[in-house]
């Protein structure tokens, strides 16, 4: 029993173990509640920290006052975790591409970080930009049904 207890303590103290339930990620992304626009960030008065996960330097127009550069692959290094743990207010993820920001968001969400947002430059990030035009003259062969 002592061994089991030690194992549980070790597991709980391991910072790499995800603590949250997967459904919290689904709930937090509902209606894009975890997305924040460029203008919304500019208008923020409460404390926040922008986590720039990109590797390329940013043009002046995309520079933020409260930004910290941490490349995605180094996100979970001990020193960076300490910074994230001590950050006050909203934690806003900013990356060169959508996949990086989305995956980083899931990882940090499941590690239990709250007030976590993704900076998006699109109004509706998951909107379909095209409209399918059906071809009413085409038919599938009956045997494929």
């Amino acid at each position, binding site marked *: *029993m002592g061994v*089991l*207890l030690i194992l*549980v303590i070790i*597991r*709980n103290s*391991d*910072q*790499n*173990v*995800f*603590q*949250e*339930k*997967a*459904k919290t*990620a*689904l709930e937090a*992304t*509902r209606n894009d509640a975890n997305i924040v626009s460029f203008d919304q960030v500019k208008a923020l008065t409460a404390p926040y920290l922008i986590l720039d996960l990109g590797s390329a330097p940013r043009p002046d127009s995309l520079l933020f006052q409260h930004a910290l550069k941490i490349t*995605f*692959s180094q*996100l*979970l290094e001990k020193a960076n975790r300490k910074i994230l743990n001590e950050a006050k207010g909203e934690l806003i993820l900013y990356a060169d*591409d*959508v*996949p990086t920001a*989305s*995956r*980083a*968001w*899931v*990882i940090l969400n*499941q*590690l239990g970080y709250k007030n976590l947002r993704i900076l998006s430059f*699109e109004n509706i*990030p*998951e*909107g*379909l*930009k*095209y409209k*399918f035009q*059906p*071809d*009413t003259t*085409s*038919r*599938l062969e009956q045997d494929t*049904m």
Partner: protein
Amino acid sequence: MDARIKYSLLLVGIGIILAFLPFNASDSFLLKSDELLSKSTSSENSFSVDQVARMVNKEDSTMLLIDLREASQYKECNIPGSLNIPFSDLLNPLWEGTFNQKKVKKIFYGNGDQTANYAWAIATGLGYKNNFVMKGGLNEWFKTVMLSQFKGEKISPIENALYETRFNARKAFTQVNSLPDSLKSRYFKAKDIKQLKLDGGCQ
């Protein structure tokens, strides 16, 4: 000490340990965060729309396209052969058999890149293998496959093969999605039943 007291103490001890366990493993990530991060930074977990188009044309049975959009959007148009698992329903135990198919490449797509990458990270974190994302989602599919046109006088064999792949995928996409609603419902129902059978479930 009396054996009953010993067993009682043992059970109480186990109970305390279980009470302190951090989570229910079945709905929490099995991978550790550094493992998921390492997989996330790999470039080998996505397919381009052209690669997907090729697989669609071949009716590749080793891949399963998972459309993460809501059912209404899926009904309007979807990539032939795809299965609709709305992102909000991703953790429904009904899909466990689908995600557990280790030899099948599960390729997530939404309209853009965001939802597919959330789903990829969640499925991978939960320990499911062989998860991929279709880069750019349906928007990229429309741009590259549906609206592609050859411009120029000469066409190289490589360009020709690519154009043919896109043309055939476009044709399949248009045929399936142009079906009248009644036939479309039958078609999707037949697909769902086929999928359930593959998962080892019943109708």
